[in-house]
């Protein structure tokens, strides 16, 4: 063929074994459907990936909330308690020691015996006593302290039930109907379930909002365990972290952005910061163990130590975000300030810093949110101890929220599963608040030039 217009088709035709010669447009059209299908497939992969991510997010949240929401309710049983002075062994109501040593559990046992007077065997009685919580006596004591007059009288009281009963009552469904088939009986015996059902029929069992959960520290008994200790520990740790990492981070960022000359030291500092940002958090725990505990002999398990370790961990994040915020301040503002005679420190303190502050605060809050969720380094420095008391300062032994979650998740009792999930919900709540605040701050205060 001599026609130059056809030469291209000719080459293609030679490559295709088919006898029929195709033009370019025909070739393209032939493959077009296939290519469009590939396009659609590719798009579908993208949507599927995003869908998978969002599905996991949904699963995670529904799983946690599904497991944890019931922990915000607590089951109470109504008992007719006779505050018998003899049984309580109280002769003088004003004596604090007697009040502390009194046998409250005995009074409750008596109340249970009167309620179920047909229970005679020893083993059965023991099972009966296990209906109410070991900690229910504290409530009676508090009641007596507030109102000494009830000593010797009979009163109708709502008493905390044991965690096994609590789990059963929560899993059996609506209290006004018969128990559902998937009610979790666990370690409960037939007799105990019958008693509980009798009590439910008589409207003597009630679910109430679990204020205890937010008011007390850790406990070995699930129904008595609360997260106040962990929350306070987290707050103290975060205060130490914020008080140290924010000023130091901002100062380092100012130095690197405004003062540092391009030399080996600056280069070295930058390399170090970038590296530290990527070091696994557990390494910081090793640092805390070797340097702060072994070398400086700081006591273990205190928020001060936790705060120091978390400060070192969050510093890179804060420095990096603060540098970005400082960089975003237009040089014209600095030049204007310089032009009317401000010194470098004045330019920075009077102009750059206030304008960069929203960005820096956003970075700091995000860094704090990261530190609040951090567990691994705190395990290393002994914040895993079982601590009942609510810490009152940065030098009291304490634990933090994520570590409390870790500790509870190790407990075999089913009642701790819902406590753990509830603690996770509280932790996630804090994180969501912090992050929303950061986003709000950025939207509200950050200026674009």
């Amino acid at each position, binding site marked *: 063929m001599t026609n130059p217009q056809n030469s291209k088709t000719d080459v293609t035709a030679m490559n295709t074994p088919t006898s029929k010669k195709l033009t370019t447009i025909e070739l393209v059209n032939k493959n077009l459907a296939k290519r469009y299908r590939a396009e659609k497939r590719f798009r579908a992969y*993208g949507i599927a990936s995003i869908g998978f991510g969002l599905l996991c997010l949904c699963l995670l949240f529904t799983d946690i909330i599904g497991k944890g929401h019931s922990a915000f309710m607590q089951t109470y049983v109504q008992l007719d308690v006779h505050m018998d002075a003899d049984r309580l062994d109280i002769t003088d109501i004003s004596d604090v020691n007697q009040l502390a040593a009194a046998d409250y559990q005995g009074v409750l046992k008596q109340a249970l015996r009167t309620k179920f007077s047909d229970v005679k065997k020893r083993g059965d009685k023991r099972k009966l006593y296990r209906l109410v919580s070991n900690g229910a006596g504290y409530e009676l004591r508090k009641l007596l302290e507030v109102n000494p007059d009830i000593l010797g009288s009979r009163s109708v009281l709502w008493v905390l039930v044991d965690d096994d009963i609590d789990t059963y009552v929560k899993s059996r469904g609506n209290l006004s109907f018969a128990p559902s088939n998937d009610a979790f009986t666990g370690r409960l015996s037939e007799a105990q379930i019958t008693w509980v059902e009798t009590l439910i029929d008589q409207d003597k069992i009630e679910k109430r909002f679990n204020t205890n959960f937010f008011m007390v520290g850790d406990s070995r008994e699930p129904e008595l365990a609360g997260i106040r200790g962990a929350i306070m520990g987290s707050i103290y740790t975060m205060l130490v972290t914020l008080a140290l990492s924010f000023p130091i981070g901002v100062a380092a960022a100012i*130095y690197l952005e405004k003062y540092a000359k391009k030399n080996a030291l600056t280069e070295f500092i930058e390399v170090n910061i*970038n590296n530290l940002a990527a070091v696994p958090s557990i390494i910081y725990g090793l640092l805390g163990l070797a340097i702060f505990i072994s070398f400086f002999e700081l006591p273990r398990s205190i928020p001060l130590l936790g705060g120091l370790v978390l400060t070192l961990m969050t510093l890179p994040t804060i*420095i990096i975000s603060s540098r970005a915020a400082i960089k975003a301040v237009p040089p014209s503002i600095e030049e204007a300030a310089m032009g009317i005679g401000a010194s470098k420190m004045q330019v920075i303190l009077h102009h750059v810093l206030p304008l960069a502050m929203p960005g820096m605060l956003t970075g700091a809050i995000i860094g704090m949110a990261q530190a609040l969720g951090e567990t691994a380094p705190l395990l290393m420095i002994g914040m895993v101890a079982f601590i009942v008391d609510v810490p009152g300062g940065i030098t009291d032994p304490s634990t933090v929220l994520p570590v409390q979650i*870790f500790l509870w998740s190790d407990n075999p009792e089913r009642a701790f599963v819902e406590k753990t999930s509830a603690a996770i919900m509280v932790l996630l709540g804090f*994180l969501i608040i912090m992050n929303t605040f950061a986003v709000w701050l950025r939207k509200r205060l950050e200026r674009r030039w």
Partner: protein
Amino acid sequence: MDTSTLLAVLAIMIAVAYFFGRGRSISMADTSQGGYRNLNSLPFYYGMLTALWCAVPCVLLMIGWMSFESTIIDSLVVAQLPEAVRNLSSNELGLVMNTVSNIAEGNVIGDEPETYLVAAAESLQGVRHTSQLALTGSVLSLGILLSIFAWSRIRPEQKARLQVEGVFKAILLLCACLAILTTVGILFSVIFESLHFFKAVPITEFLFGTHWSPQTSIRADQVGGSGSFGAVPLFLGTLLISAIALIIAVPCGLMAAIYLSEYASSSVRTYVKPLLEILAGVPTVVYGFFAALTVAPLIRELGETFGLSVSSESALAAGLVMGVMIIPFVSSLADDVITAVPQSLRDGSLGLGSTKSETIKQVVIPAALPGIVGGVLLAASRAIGETMIVVMAAGLAARMTANPLESVTTVTVQIVTLLVGDQEFNSPKTLSAFALGLMLFIVTLVLNYFALFVVKKYREQYD
């Protein structure tokens, strides 16, 4: 005076010094023409200078005092203990000193302590009291003396501003150098203890040994308590779990980033992107709980329906959940590099008649590849260093297997199990955790460097 009161008093002193310094400079100023004409600097700087003269030496003195106080006090008290006690080994002596300080603080448990302990406790209390008094006295007098000195030196021609700005810059530099100090601290803590460990266990055995059981025997004749520290099973376990995580996270994160940056409308983007990022913000302990209590039983049940025996602490569960955690990490890194590819490249490719997916596969991805590879490497380093998910969902038994349905253990799990709870210092068991930490540090460091290197070396410059 205890430390917090002392700090409060010091703060008041610094404020007073500031006002006196400022006042003196104003009184020296020539205000006849309005303003402070003959002063070299603003009165603020004179005040700051006086305050700094008071603050910096006092704070340094306090820090120095407190870091050496306990050692000196201990040695003073030890010197008074009976000869026999003083000759005890350092560990036992530490126990004795602990008892002494407990008695001094009034926490006596059980029997009446021996008389020499009580005497030591009393002297400890005395020395502590004296030390606190001396600290208070020296800090206060030093602060007052230096403030008066600085105050008396204030002259109108003094270059107060330059001096204050010099100190300001020095403090900033010090803060920036904390990053170096932290790295040095990490290196010091892991290398120092690792060297101890490698004295007891040869480094070749640690790196190439295939049997890991860190339980050392208490008695010499105990069975199976010799302790062997071959870390290969841990490395393999870490690799297995990280590999599962990356197999999930890399395709998923990459495709999500491609869809969000190339296909999605901006309104979808503004909602979906932050939602995906939530996954990165969830604390790892939550993922660990999710993996251990929900995913692992689920996988186990699924496996049983297919007749497979799945360990309840399978590597698959931990890896899967870890992968989900890393998805947003990969996708946001990939998103950044994909958006950085110039539009002209896409336009060129589309203009030649290729479909959007062909453009992405043959033009955008190759152009963004160095950044994507760097991101994947960073994700790998994060997966290797991840702790809580594996601590809660992976097993403890060191096993060499590539079967994701069996339980394996990882480097981080072992570090946590070895170091949480009661430990004996300087036993190879405890020290091995630091050796593992050193390995972890080195590997993540190398991965990070390599990631940066890839990005720097192969990045295409379009501008």
